[in-house]
């Protein structure tokens, strides 16, 4: 067989990355380059495609029964959309993302998104940074969109097995109302029904309490300690 052409350095690197022979640090550098260099990313994709027929020869094996149910249970609730929405609304307004490495990396890997605000939208967006009373660090970030009647919440809490984190709104009358549970490290969009929406006003307090799994047994007050508190304000 003839010698054939040599690969250029950049293409050789792309091929090596696709094949998987690079060492840990080299692989990390190549991944970073994929993220910022579209030409390199295209070369890597081309090599993945070239090598992928190797996988065609692998015989299919039916996964164990129940595998899908396990996956379905593990699916976060639309967190990709919620995070993107969240970031679009609050970019620059809330500098707390760095508090969570996971969230920060997740955001850094995505191109900027411009959110078009519908014209004539009357009610302003609200947000709140819920900080720990002990450390002063932000533990939750929340944004309320009156047009959607949805509260978007991101938890920056460390993993806390055996406990649930319950979000409450405390309007001017001082009576807490439960809004729902937020798992550590996740984001969720909580639809606010007609009875709750009017409570989400500038100045209303949001708080998160540490509760047994399933939330506070008392629907009118937290049963456990308060992890974080913040007030809603116009963005």
């Amino acid at each position, binding site marked *: 067989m003839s010698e054939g*052409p040599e*690969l250029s350095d950049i293409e050789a690197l792309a091929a090596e990355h696709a094949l*998987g022979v690079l060492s840990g640090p080299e692989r990390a550098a190549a991944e970073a380059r994929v993220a910022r260099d579209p030409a390199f990313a295209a070369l890597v994709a081309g090599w993945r*495609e*070239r090598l992928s027929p190797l996988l065609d020869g692998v*015989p299919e094996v039916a996964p164990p029964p129940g*595998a899908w149910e396990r996956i379905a249970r593990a699916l*976060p609730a639309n967190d*990709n959309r919620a995070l993107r929405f969240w970031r679009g609304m609050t970019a620059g307004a809330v500098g707390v993302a760095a508090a969570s490495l996971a969230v920060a990396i997740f955001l850094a890997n995505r191109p900027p998104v411009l959110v078009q605000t519908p014209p004539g939208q009357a009610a302003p967006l609200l947000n709140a940074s819920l900080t720990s009373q002990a450390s002063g660090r932000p533990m939750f970030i929340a944004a309320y969109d009156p047009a959607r009647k949805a509260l978007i919440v991101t938890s920056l809490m460390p993993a806390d097995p055996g406990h649930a984190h319950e979000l409450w709104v405390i309007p001017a009358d001082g009576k807490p109302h439960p809004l729902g549970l937020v798992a550590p490290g996740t984001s969720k969009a909580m639809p606010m029904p007609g009875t709750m929406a009017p409570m989400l006003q500038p100045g209303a307090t949001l708080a998160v309490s540490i509760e047994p799994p399933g939330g506070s047994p008392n629907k009118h007050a937290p049963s456990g300690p308060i992890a974080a508190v913040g007030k809603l304000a116009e963005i």
Partner: protein
Amino acid sequence: MARIAAGDREALRQLYQATSAKLFGVALRILSDREDAQDVLQEVYLTVWRRADRFDEARASVMTWVSAIARNRAIDRLRARGPLARAEPVEGLEIADEGALGAEALLSAADDSGRLGACLSELDKRTETAIRTAFFEGLTYEALARRMDAPLGTVKSWIRRGLARLKGCLER
């Protein structure tokens, strides 16, 4: 994929039905352990769920994309098992002794038909086996060199030349 990116669980379930046997097969081939393979399967669909918006149909077919994720996840797991997982004796491996080099890789030699298989078989046996072993076991250059008992630079040049020839052959 657009429906999955928009948060449609039913679309993900359909993708699972169409691709899970393939992906489980890939994970099992790389890991040789059903429990690990099932964990990888779950990671793959959770990754697809989170990153479906990054799928670019101009670059890859859906099957190629999800298979690549499955392979990468399985290899990550294989590497995480650490060096103990590869506690096979290194001494006595001759470069010429292909049998000792990834029986896994050799097994697959008969499986993949088509142009890539034909082009791989045009390479010298040592290079072909090195490429297959790297692909299916996620071996780095360093690990390949140890396994093949050959200098690192030599292994690198075999693989680089092999990849260049593969490309030339596939473009013919």
